[in-house]
């Protein structure tokens, strides 16, 4: 092999090597058919282009122009009557035959449909993962929840779930004082708990302040008297009476699933509903993860 060809192939090999190194580094699975075909395609581009170009450029060194000239001449430019280069002509013919075969036999016989393929993909996925995670343990759920959180929730709540200085709920704590005061003042009716709506104005003034302080403080010590109103629905321990109303002391699975199903508009802003965007296992995983924060 001549030196030009060696250089061309070496360049292609380095490019492919670097590409594979980088995607491997990002944990990409190259056995996935789409990824694999793409890599082969990329290799074909590099090796064919630089290989074939090197072949012809090398001929500038080794070969000589010859042939029979046509009678025409334009501004000093002549033209040979040379035959078509064989490799080119056969490849052209080959691709034409392939195209006709593919169009008439290869393609319609398979009766391909991209939505059909999508459905197959989803089914294969379900077979692989849905079953596997049905009875996942807490550690698995937590790890899984974290990875879902980073993709779906972090854009609003931040990667550490701290709410990005008040742009969304800080999920590392339950609600802040002013939020609680806001709910007390305005009531709430959007999360879809069995108990339905929370009326507005259940407490006010110093009572409301005291309640809010008590809740934010983690419901330690003696409850202020006014909290009795709240206890009627949220329980003396604030845990929501077994899912009848929200747990106002910490994030439990119920509140997370209710928020995901219904979304929530509060004093910070609006969180959209994730209805139909997550599977039950994923919701459970998110809840587990949030409780671990």
């Amino acid at each position, binding site marked *: 092999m001549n030196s030009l060809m060696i250089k061309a192939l070496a360049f292609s090999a380095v490019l492919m090597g670097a590409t594979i190194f980088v995607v491997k580094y990002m944990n990409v699975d190259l056995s996935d058919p789409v990824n694999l075909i793409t890599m082969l395609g990329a290799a074909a581009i590099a090796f064919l282009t630089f290989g074939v170009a090197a072949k012809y450029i090398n001929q500038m060194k080794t070969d000589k122009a010859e042939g029979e000239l046509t009678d025409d001449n334009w501004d000093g430019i002549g033209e040979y009557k040379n035959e078509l280069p064989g490799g080119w002509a056969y490849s052209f013919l080959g691709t034409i035959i392939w195209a006709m075969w593919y169009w008439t036999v290869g393609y319609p016989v398979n009766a391909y449909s991209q939505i059909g393929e999508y459905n197959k993909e989803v089914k294969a996925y379900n077979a692989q993962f849905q079953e596997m995670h049905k009875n996942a343990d807490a550690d698995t759920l937590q790890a899984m929840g974290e990875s879902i959180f980073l993709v*779906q929730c972090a854009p609003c709540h931040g990667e550490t779930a701290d709410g990005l200085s008040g742009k969304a709920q800080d999920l590392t704590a339950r609600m802040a004082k002013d939020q609680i005061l806001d709910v007390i003042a305005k009531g709430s009716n959007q999360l879809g708990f069995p108990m339905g709506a929370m009326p507005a104005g259940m407490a006010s003034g110093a009572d409301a302040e005291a309640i809010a302080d008590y809740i934010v403080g983690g419901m330690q010590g003696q409850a202020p008297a006014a909290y009795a109103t709240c206890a009627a629905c949220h329980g003396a321990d604030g845990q929501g009476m077994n899912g009848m109303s929200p747990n106002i002391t910490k994030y439990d699975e119920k509140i997370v699933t209710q928020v995901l199903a219904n979304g929530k508009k509060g004093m910070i802003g609006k969180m959209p509903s994730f209805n139909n965007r997550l599977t039950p296992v994923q919701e459970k995983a998110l809840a587990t993860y949030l409780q671990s924060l």
Partner: protein
Amino acid sequence: MFHWLEKNPFFFAVGVFLVIAFAGLVEILPNFGEASRPVVGLKPYTVLELAGKEVYKKDNCIACHSQLIRPFKSETDRYGQYSLSGEYAYDRPFLWGSKRTGPDLHRIGNYRSTDWHENHMWDPKSVIPQSIMPAYKHQFSNIADIETAYAEAVTVKELFNTPYDVDGGVALGSWEDARAAALAEAKEIAADMKNQDVKDLVANDQIPEIVALIAYMNKLK
């Protein structure tokens, strides 16, 4: 034959034209009637949303954002249901884009909200620290062109039978009606926002671009 063509430019040109014109007929025409049919329940854009679409075009978000969810599980997990042809029936022009420097936006209205857009358009890094998207602060003071949006709605209603002013649909009416409706819609959005300048403008019956843009973003579902 080819030698003859090369000596007869007129026929040469005709030959070239026939060879190149052919493909368009075979490949484009057969689907024309079907592809433009709307999916059931699709509503046309309100005037405010159209004005927002104009902001999207003017600031050229299409440079970085697509609006086409391909039927792959990885895309439907990220963005929601794959896109259907009939969902685009009222998109003139289509805004699928060809580059995703940022994420797809075809269903952004499902999983982002007014307040989030407000933060994000003012300063993307405030919500996504590693974002490379530019801030669009000028949209908070530039006034949206509601009148042109109205003109567009009238045009598509009359020329392409886009169903405005039908029962249970989007009302258009006269320019005064349309302007009032756009303002009412804008006020609802501004109520969910925090920027005081925006609130003041809307209170004074002026609609900043950001409000129209958010109306459009929220419509994308």
